[in-house]
């Protein structure tokens, strides 16, 4: 079975993470009504050529979504200022344990395989 053809591209199947776009701003974590997102990060100093002072950037260490808890409301996707989160129509990720539904960076990034880059138009 594959992702059904009859499923709209942005249907609430699974959330794909683009880790390079994430700034660790924590908005998704704080706004999640069911506390199913966890994020760990650390600060690093980056010196750019020609810059007077080094710049501090947040580096993402861990990002997990517990799909056992997730209520698929999409608040995290809607609020992410950098579109690091996006809906994918995939559904085939049932697990043999509740812990198996907790997905980390690599699993969440793997959903980007068939990321639909078309503009998000509600109701389409």
């Amino acid at each position, binding site marked *: 079975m594959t992702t059904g053809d009859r*499923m709209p591209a942005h249907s609430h199947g699974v959330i794909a993470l683009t880790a390079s776009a994430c700034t660790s701003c924590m908005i998704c974590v704080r706004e999640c009504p*069911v506390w199913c997102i966890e994020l760990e990060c650390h600060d690093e100093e980056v010196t750019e050529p020609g810059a007077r002072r080094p710049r501090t950037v947040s580096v993402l260490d861990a990002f997990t979504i517990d*799909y*056992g*808890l997730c*209520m698929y409301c999409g608040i995290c996707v809607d609020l992410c200022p950098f579109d690091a989160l996006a809906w994918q129509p995939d*559904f085939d990720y*049932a697990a*043999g*344990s509740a812990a198996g539904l907790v997905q980390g960076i690599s699993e969440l990034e793997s959903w980007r395989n068939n990321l639909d880059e078309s503009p998000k138009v509600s109701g389409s």
Partner: protein
Amino acid sequence: MEIGKEVFDTSSAPGNTLGLVSAPLPNPRMYRVAADPSLRVQILDLGLACCALEVGSAIATGLLVETGLLDAADVGASPASGTTILLISGTSTDALAPAVLRAWEQLPEPKAAVSFGACANTGGPYWDAPTVTKGIDQLVPVTIYVPGCPPRPEALIAGLLKVRDEIEVA
């Protein structure tokens, strides 16, 4: 410790069971899984909340086809055929828990439990509610957890195929 033991000790609780402990349970029904015609399973659909509609949708869209009794050829075709599946979809409260446990205990072997949707998996949106069971795996041994709020009917089929895989490996 026996699964669900501490949850079911309601000896101190008020004697209100809403008839759940004594009412007769429906019989499981036999279904053929369209994605794998060799797989025929008996399902007792324990629909406790809105997720139950997705099970109906799986039947209405032909993903699950109600069928007759199992014969010897089916058992040979897929080792999982003939398995009775307790499909728990929706929110279980601690008040309802004895009925869930009874449904599991009354099913014939071989059997497997499928937890369908966020409420059955962990309590879901009601994870902080004092009256909601935080995952039906506190009550019965769950073979496959299907994520979603609700999961799509296709996700139910994908979950059933995973149950088949688990049984074939075992």
